[in-house]
């Protein structure tokens, strides 16, 4: 009996059936002494409780890293991570960076040249009003 390969019937498309957040963990590192961590320390005390409560699907770890600039590192389900240095930033600036980490897919940054990108490319191409015979009214 010949072995038959399984045909790929469908590809997983995040957000079509269910949406799984790509960011699984965010590490926050700070320094107790250094001035560049002042905003980070304030963020952890004032804004992080609310942000962490709003995102129960992300794991947050807070740990000191003495004599180093503060860093927020996002870890993604594709195995990649994205570190952002947040030295000398204000708490609300750091909040923006955390939102960026949350929304990121974890993929390498790529230059987008085509306006439309799809895994299901159209065989007919993109419709244009300037081509074809048009519709007589």
């Amino acid at each position, binding site marked *: 009996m010949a072995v038959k390969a399984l045909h790929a019937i469908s590809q997983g498309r995040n957000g079509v059936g269910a949406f799984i957040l790509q960011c699984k963990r965010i590490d926050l590192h*700070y320094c*107790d002494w250094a001035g560049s961590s002042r905003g980070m*320390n304030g963020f*952890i*005390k004032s804004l*992080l*409780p609310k942000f*962490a*409560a709003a*995102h*129960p*699907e*992300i*794991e*947050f*770890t*807070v*740990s*000191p*890293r*003495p004599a180093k600039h503060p860093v927020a590192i996002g870890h993604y389900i594709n195995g990649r991570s994205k570190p952002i240095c947040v030295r000398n930033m204000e708490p609300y600036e750091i909040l923006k960076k955390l939102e960026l980490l949350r929304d990121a897919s974890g993929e390498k940054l790529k230059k987008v040249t085509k306006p439309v990108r799809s895994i299901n490319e159209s065989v007919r191409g993109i419709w244009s009003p300037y081509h074809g015979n048009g519709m007589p009214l």
Partner: protein
Amino acid sequence: MRHLPRLRGAVSASLCCSSPTHIRTTTAVAAVATTSSSSTKTQSLQRRTLSTSLPRSDAVEAYTPPQGLKPPPQARKAAVRPDKITDPAYEPAQDGLELEEVGGLDGWWENPDNYGVGRQWVGYGPAEKITDPAVLEVAVYRALVEAMVARRQMNTPDTTPARDALLESGWGPAALTATTVQTKLCGGSHGTLILKPTEDVETATAAEQEAEVTEEAKEQLEAAVTPEQEAEVVEAKEEVTAVASERVAEITEETKEEAETGVASGQETETEVKEEVDATEDSADHVISTEEARALLKEIGHEWKRPMIKDLIYKYFVAKRIYKLTGHRIPDGKLVAINSGGVLLKEIVKPPKAKKLAEEIENKQLFQSLPNVKVFPRRVTPIDKEKMVGRWKVIREELERRGLPVIGTANIDNAIEKKWVTGAK
């Protein structure tokens, strides 16, 4: 522009005296010089100053150096020359390091004995702040009571020395704290803090009022109080005077005892005097222990925490008294905002500020209800990460089996590859 030659010094000036104008000027200057030389010391002081205001000549002349201040040694003694030494046992030193250092200014400025007693700084409050919450609460209550007595007696000139002594006295004996704390504070008719009249005080009032407080003092006391507080004063007046009299009498007795102790000890030797003074100081200022404070707090209760405190002078007295008793200084800005005993207590009794962010997070329990947040008190090392996933045990066993160092590089040199490249030496 025409440039004039610059005259230098008195010699050049004397060369220009040919014209009659210069002669007149020179004469005038000489006259001024004569006047100034014969003027008084005050005038010379006025001339020296650069300020437009006159110097305080009385203050300058009245200055006397503080007693006990020793000037640094000025005279230097020359050592006897080696060839003139007659002592046969004398042997000249071969090295300067062997010589003993005699005299000089080394350590002279640091020695406190060289300065007068008046120059030594004595702080108003205690050297160390009291941090025990129970003791602090008793101290705050005591300060509120004593400051209220002082405030009510503020415009009475007879009691001014006693009032100052009351505000600037320390803890005193333990019994004094217990007695003061027995005086109750409560809310008055306007919701402000007043002394609560008690039966004991009322009976004491009858006996002591006539002897201690004159009618004149009572009138002045009434004049010092605002119309709003008039109703409260009617209630508390008698009892206040009694408390004040008791406290004044106690202070007088304490002063007498101290004076007697000083006279008695003056006849003894110096060492005995020091021991005596130390003993009296210990008995005089007894900061209550935590257990004593807790026992007193049961008597004090919580009734005094809610009533309003509006009088700024009263608040100032309270702050001064608290500083003297506990070492906690309340800033003026916060003192204005403090409007009750409870707020005052909250301002003073504070947990020590956390030195580290992790401690602060733990104290405030910021992430207590969040299971997705982990806070580490120290740096998470690679070993910690291995331990988290249960791999460190395996790694350790394998390293030990191979005879490799578990932590660090042991005796393995970092630059061993360099030796291979350049050739071993």
